[in-house]
């Protein structure tokens, strides 16, 4: 899996968590400041990512942006 594939899947998961129409999601998009998600929302996203990619994510520490999650998944899968 390359970065684009992981990014696209994570983007779908994030959009699914949001109630609004698909916003412009980039690697730099910050969950809290750009998407105003609360920590519960972020954990729901993290849970879906665990299921989708079959990885374990112990905490949300250091996972502030979409790119952080993409890199985390890529490292786990490397």
């Amino acid at each position, binding site marked *: 899996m390359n970065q684009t594939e992981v990014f696209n899947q994570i983007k779908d998961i994030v959009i699914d968590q949001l*109630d*609004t129409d698909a916003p412009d999601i980039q690697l730099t998009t910050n969950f809290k400041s750009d998407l105003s998600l609360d*920590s*519960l*929302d972020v*954990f*729901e996203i*993290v*849970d879906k990512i665990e299921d989708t990619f079959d990885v374990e994510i112990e905490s949300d520490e250091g996972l502030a942006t979409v790119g952080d999650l993409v890199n985390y998944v890529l490292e786990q899968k490397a």
Partner: protein
Amino acid sequence: MTIGYLFSGQGQQFAGMGADLYAQEASYRDVIDQASDILHHDLTTPAVVEDPQLAQANIVAFSVALHRVLAPELPAPAAMTGLSLGEYSALVAADSLDLATILPLVVDRTAYMNEAGAQRPGTMSAVLKTSAAQVEAICHQVREQGELVYPANYNTARQIVIGGSAAGVAQATERFHAAGIKRVVPLNMTVASHTPLMAAASRSLARRLQDVVFEEPSVAVYSNTTARPFAQLSLRDTLVKQLVQPTRFDLCLTALCDQGCDTLIEIGPGDALSKLAHKNHPDLATAHVDSVATLNQVRHALEEVHG
């Protein structure tokens, strides 16, 4: 298209809430002016909007005023529900209670909950990737050890909020972690709503409701407590129990689907309920209205449906 309404609960109020609607929507303004007269507080001033003692009244006034704007523009709803406080907004929308009755009532409800919380402080945490059976079993085990913790909000099949004493919630959290449930997320709450820790508030509310007259709801309003429509005769009793029994918003959403609803509109601050609706029933169309921008989105979507 069959519509259902969801009325927001507490916790998603935002700064400047309603200012844009007040400036642009005449029927919104009428309700807020009426609410300000009833409460003897000007609900358009930020200090009043942010007053914690008026938080519940502000949310109900905001939601009822929004409903007044939306109702003439939308098809009649097949059913409604709300989360906790949102049930009160729904009952006004269904003509069971009027504004003059409900606003002082929810101000008192706030005070009862704060008093009960001061007597028996509590905390709440959301448990993710769990099940109802697991949450019930762990809460039971902790109570057998002498600490208080209970299931409080059944939000989805896998997301359940627990509430109890600080020690009870901490012990339950340890047990969840030991059982492989990693995420138990503390919520910003100082009272354990919808648990027996609210017993004193529930008793005060029972006395307060004795003289309140409810009409039979004109539309089915599903109760979080019973997952059935509120009925005139049992309404008081159900609202009293609501403070000490868990909310079954998951079952209310299923009931709305069973009533044929395919489109749910969340009325009130935030989008927490539309998100829950989407998680429970991914096929539902959802929208939330809490500003001029989101109101216009719904209007635009309606124009497309009707051509």
